[in-house]
């Protein structure tokens, strides 16, 4: 089985059973193209630089900034150059439509310089004659000499020297503006110019406009092109002298307490992500045809133009991709079928047709946006161009207007007929499994899901159970009862009846149901302690290797027999802090890695459900999930009475969610940039091809990119994620997400367009990987160092021009980064040392972080804390009105009032906290008669009263926001030690606890280190 086994037949000689594994040329997904290996793999073509790169208005397309050019999104032509629109009255968040550069005939800057040198322009611009009279005549000279002035907010406020420096509030329209040192906010700014905020609002999208307006004709001209900085002078009073300091960083917190020895951050003013994850709208405004950020998020929505610039961005540079994210209700990904023709792709770089491709020569050719090659349009796909250069059929072609589409893949994209959905269950039936009640819950849940398994009527299903022997079940449709076959020779596994173990569900439905009904009673008197997990795994592999599919493992005890047996690895406190510490988090036996590699090769995805109350070595078992795009579910000390509901929901979700089978994913990007490392649960099949035997909407993958060329000459970078998979219905499909991002030359732009969620996701995956080779302490230090470096570089941008002593500055876009960094260091996976988290839980948490989507990760890192008692007590509030319970509180002990009832929800569990002096009414109504009893023994059930119903409604709402995991509620009373400690108090990340620093202290540490440079 091992990969090093010399006798094993090599890959090419294998029949079609390995769909993509076969020698690369026939792999349809590899860029060698649908036709088997007729050309060398041109993944990253090396053509000469695109011609239009140097001269923005070259022949690459019709003149760029002219509306109506082919492929252009209809830009508002009238507004674009209409000087008659008065700039000042734009107080709303609407994008200021005023004319940009065209308004300044006197501006001495040729278009090419405009792209890069915004700041000097502004200085000039404010003197430009055609500007409205309200302009202050002050040149913005302080900006001009700066090496890298930020372009976006170019704050023109000139305050007196004594005035406190103003804090420019969040520039994003959707952002709350309550944080960031409200008292620091220069009052004059507010009182005099309420319009300011509004004008700043749309700044970010506008700033990038220069890049857009010079696209070689194939980029939609941005709807909100005009830079706002131009108009702002109109709303700025002629106050202050010329030397006034304006600050360009969008947010800053400066809380030095004069008089005390130590600088302090006022905890009240620290930024907190109480709104949850906010997807940045920057790109959607700039490139409306991009795919939704739900699918692809870049750590910064801008690609640095040079290696030297990239090296100054110390935070991770990369993307987080969730290829199958669930679209919000009602929306569907359009499915495009090119049959009988093949999928339209670029001949050279194999990019799929997308909205950014431009059609020329009366529609006979199209230019690839990624490699700029001029391709012929296949005759079946030909359509004329209209007067504006758009295809006449553009409205019937979703692939030309939408960033996310699905193509139906023709036969060239298949190595074998599309597989049916296959579910194989491998269930532990040893005594501990029986006792915990796990078998019963699993059998009942599977039975209830049989109707909803995707892929009817092709779905196949099979079962095996194991203790010290392995039991197979013949479920042939002709039988009335399943037939049990026992294999006890663990050293030489063989499969009895290889054809009837995996059966078609619709044909053998009654046999399967009979089996599931009898499963729990069949083993109820089993007293077998052993677990022949390894051999069982091998036999499951033998059953499934023909088709592939999903293998669900229910494991209740440490594997003790046959291959892959594991030792009770001493989770020894002495090991922590030494060089051997990471070994605990690595698989002990190479068997598991080898099995995982084989599974991946044969398109088997493994989900591990572990239930033991003792050590089960999640580190080893999790390896199976790690390389097969699977998932680890861990229920420590499972008891069906308590945890049954959670298992039921999560297993149901696992079985019924839409799944993509035998998938491979690749992300393409234009020349000059390359994705180098990938992080998540998958196996690499070639340098950039992710093998995902089964993938679903709850999995995200992260990747880091690096610049291959010292200087990028293009102005837009395109990324295209392509996921080739078999849908449950048996259709082979390609899901394509296309994304365009600007290439920027200023570090400040990179910071401005940064996406905290994606950065945190990448940072945490890197940290988890680090714990596999180093100490926990090192991983935490690395996270902190990364943040410090990032902020220090940002500080250096402004250090020359502003007085920054005792101030901590950070970009608006990264205001939550520090807090999430702290939360990451205090998360279950990285927290403390030996005594803080049991090893298995730590490993399971690590596996979760490696798979979850950004939204869920942020929720896990900074859970919501909500006060409930008011909602429960107030009869006046209608029960449906759940608005009042949406107010999240800071995660600190000070938020907890001992008279209140709080709910803490991290997406994986809910903790309901009863204050010490909570009104007995509440407790009685919620818990029933035994409200005074020990809470650990009580479970929360609906009582027959309004209050309890309301609580249930709240819980239901919380659970419905994201169904990937089920939040089991734990009840805890204030002062109930040690339960309160580890359930809630340790998770209040803003409080100092044990060796962990609190939020204010953490900020202070970071701020000190930032200033040390």
């Amino acid at each position, binding site marked *: 089985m091992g*990969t*090093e*086994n*010399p006798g*094993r037949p*090599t*890959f*090419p000689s294998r029949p079609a059973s390995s769909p993509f*594994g076969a*020698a*690369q040329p026939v792999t349809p997904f*590899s860029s060698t193209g649908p036709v088997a290996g007729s050309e060398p*793999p041109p*993944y990253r073509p090396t053509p000469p630089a695109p011609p239009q790169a140097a001269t923005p208005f070259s022949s690459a397309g019709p003149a760029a900034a002219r509306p109506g050019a082919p492929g252009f999104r209809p830009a508002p032509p009238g507004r674009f150059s209409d000087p008659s629109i008065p700039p000042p009255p734009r107080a709303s968040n609407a994008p200021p439509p005023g004319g940009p550069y065209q308004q300044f005939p006197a501006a001495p800057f040729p278009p090419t310089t405009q792209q890069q040198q915004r700041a000097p322009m502004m200085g000039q611009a404010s003197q430009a004659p055609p500007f409205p009279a309200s302009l202050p005549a002050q040149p913005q000279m302080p900006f001009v000499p700066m090496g890298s002035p930020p372009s976006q907010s170019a704050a023109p406020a000139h305050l007196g020297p004594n005035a406190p420096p103003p804090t420019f509030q969040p520039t994003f329209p959707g952002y709350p503006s309550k944080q960031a040192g409200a008292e620091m906010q220069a009052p004059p700014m507010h009182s005099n110019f309420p319009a300011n905020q509004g004008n700043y609002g749309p700044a970010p999208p506008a700033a990038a406009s220069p890049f857009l307006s010079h696209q070689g004709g194939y980029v939609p001209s941005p709807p909100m092109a005009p830079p706002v900085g131009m108009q702002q002078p109109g709303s700025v009073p002629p106050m202050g002298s010329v030397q006034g300091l304006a600050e360009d960083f969008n947010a800053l917190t400066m809380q030095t307490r004069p008089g005390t020895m130590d600088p302090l951050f006022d905890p009240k003013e620290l930024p907190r992500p109480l709104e949850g994850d906010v997807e940045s709208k920057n790109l959607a405004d700039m490139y409306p045809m991009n795919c939704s950020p739900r699918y692809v998020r870049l750590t910064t929505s801008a690609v640095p133009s040079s290696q030297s610039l990239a090296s100054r961005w110390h935070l991770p540079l990369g993307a987080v991709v969730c290829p199958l994210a669930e679209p919000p209700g009602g929306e569907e990904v359009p499915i495009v079928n090119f049959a009988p023709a093949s999928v339209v792709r670029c001949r050279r770089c194999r990019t799929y047709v997308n909205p950014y491709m431009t059609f020329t020569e009366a529609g006979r050719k199209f230019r690839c946006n990624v490699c700029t090659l001029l391709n012929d349009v296949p005759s079946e796909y030909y359509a004329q161009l209209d007067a504006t250069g758009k295809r006449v059929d553009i409205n019937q072609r979703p692939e030309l207007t939408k960033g996310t589409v699905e193509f139906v893949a023709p036969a060239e994209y298949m190595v074998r007929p599309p597989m049916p959905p296959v579910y194989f269950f491998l269930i532990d039936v040893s005594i501990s499994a029986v006792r915990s009640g796990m078998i019963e819950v699993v059998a009942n849940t599977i039975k209830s899901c049989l109707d909803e398994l995707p892929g009817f009527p092709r779905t196949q299903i099979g079962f095996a159970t194991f203790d010290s022997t392995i039991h197979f079940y013949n479920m042939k449709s002709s039988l009335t009862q399943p037939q049990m076959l026992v294999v006890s020779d663990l050293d030489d596994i063989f499969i009895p009846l290889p054809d009837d173990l995996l059966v078609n569900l619709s044909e053998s439905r009654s046999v399967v149901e009979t089996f599931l009904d009898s499963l729990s009673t069949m083993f109820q008197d089993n007293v077998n302690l052993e677990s022949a997990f390894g051999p069982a795994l091998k036999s499951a592999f033998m059953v499934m290797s023909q088709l592939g599919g999903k293998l669900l493992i229910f494991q209740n005890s440490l594997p003790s027999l046959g291959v892959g047996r594991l030792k009770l690895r001493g989770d020894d406190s002495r090991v922590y802090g030494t060089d051997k510490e990471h070994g605990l988090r690595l698989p002990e036996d*190479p068997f598991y*890695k*080898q099995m*995982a*590699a084989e599974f991946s*090769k044969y398109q088997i995805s493994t989900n591990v459900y572990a239930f033991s109350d003792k050590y089960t070595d999640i580190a080893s078992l999790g390896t199976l999930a790690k*390389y097969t795009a699977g998932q680890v579910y861990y229920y420590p000390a499972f008891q069906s009475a308590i945890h049954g509901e959670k298992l039921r929901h999560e297993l149901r979700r696992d079985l019924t969610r839409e799944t993509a089978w035998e998938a491979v994913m690749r992300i393409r990007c234009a020349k000059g940039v390359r994705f180098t*490392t990938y992080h998540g649960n998958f*196996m*690499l*099949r*070639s*340098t950039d091809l992710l093998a995902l035997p089964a993938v679903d909407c709850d999995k995200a993958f992260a990747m880091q990119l690096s610049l291959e060329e010292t200087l990028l000459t293009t102005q837009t970078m395109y990324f295209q994620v392509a996921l080739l998979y078999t849908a449950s219905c048996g259709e082979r499909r390609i899901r394509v997400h296309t994304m365009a991002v600007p290439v920027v030359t200023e570090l400040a732009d990179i910071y401005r367009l940064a996406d905290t969620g994606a950065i945190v996701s990448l940072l945490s995956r890197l940290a988890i990987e680090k714990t596999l080779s180093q100490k926990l302490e090192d991983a935490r230090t690395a996270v902190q160092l990364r943040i410090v470096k990032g902020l220090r570089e940002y500080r250096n941008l402004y250090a020359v021009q502003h007085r920054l002593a005792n101030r901590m500055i950070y970009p608006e876009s990264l205001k939550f980064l520090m807090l999430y960094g702290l939360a990451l260091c205090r998360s279950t996976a990285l927290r403390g040392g030996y005594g803080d988290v049991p090893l298995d839980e730590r490993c399971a948490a690590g596996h979760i972080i490696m798979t979850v989507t950004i939204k869920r990760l942020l929720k896990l890192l900074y859970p919501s804390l909500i006060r409930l008692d008011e909602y429960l007590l107030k009869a006046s509030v209608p029960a449906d009105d759940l608005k009042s319970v949406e107010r999240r509180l800071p995660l600190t002990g000070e938020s907890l009032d001992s008279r209140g009832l709080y709910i803490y929800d991290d997406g994986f569990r809910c903790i309901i906290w009863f204050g010490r002096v909570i009104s007995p009414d509440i407790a009685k109504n919620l818990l029933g008669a035994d409200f005074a009893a020990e809470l650990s023994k009580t479970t929360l059930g609906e009582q027959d009263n309004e209050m309890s119903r309301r609580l249930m409604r709240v819980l239901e709402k919380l659970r419905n926001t994201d169904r990937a995991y089920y939040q089991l509620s734990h009840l805890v009373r204030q002062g109930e030690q040690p339960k309160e400690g580890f359930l809630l108090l340790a998770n209040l990340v803003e409080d100092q606890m044990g060796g962990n620093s609190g939020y204010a202290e953490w900020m202070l540490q970071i701020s000190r280190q930032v200033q040390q440079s």
Partner: protein
Amino acid sequence: MAEVLYWILTFVLILTILCILGYQLILLVDLEFDYINPYDSTSRINQVVLPEFIIHGIFCFINLTGGHWFIFLISLPCLYYNVRLYIKREHLADVTEIYNKLNWEKKRRLFKVAYLVVVFVISIVSLVWTLTEEVH
């Protein structure tokens, strides 16, 4: 006569190791350029890792028994490194992580090649040395 046999054996052994390393390097480079899939590449590499180690052991042993102390001593660090890898069970290429470790694996083998070439040159020099001494 024994001396001649010894030299022939030495050269054969060194060249064999060099060939094995070259083969592994080719497989790794192929993998990088996507001409081969990771399963084949690693299983072929792993087939020859142990033979390589054993041959190196034989080479050291011959030098030790043949009394060629200097060559023995300079090939000792490599032997130690091999043994250590073997004991830590890190001598085989890991198919699941091969892409992440590709550069390191290549570097390691390139270094070994350079090292062996040096050993080879030194052997030739000492052969010439002994020959000239015999002539005189």
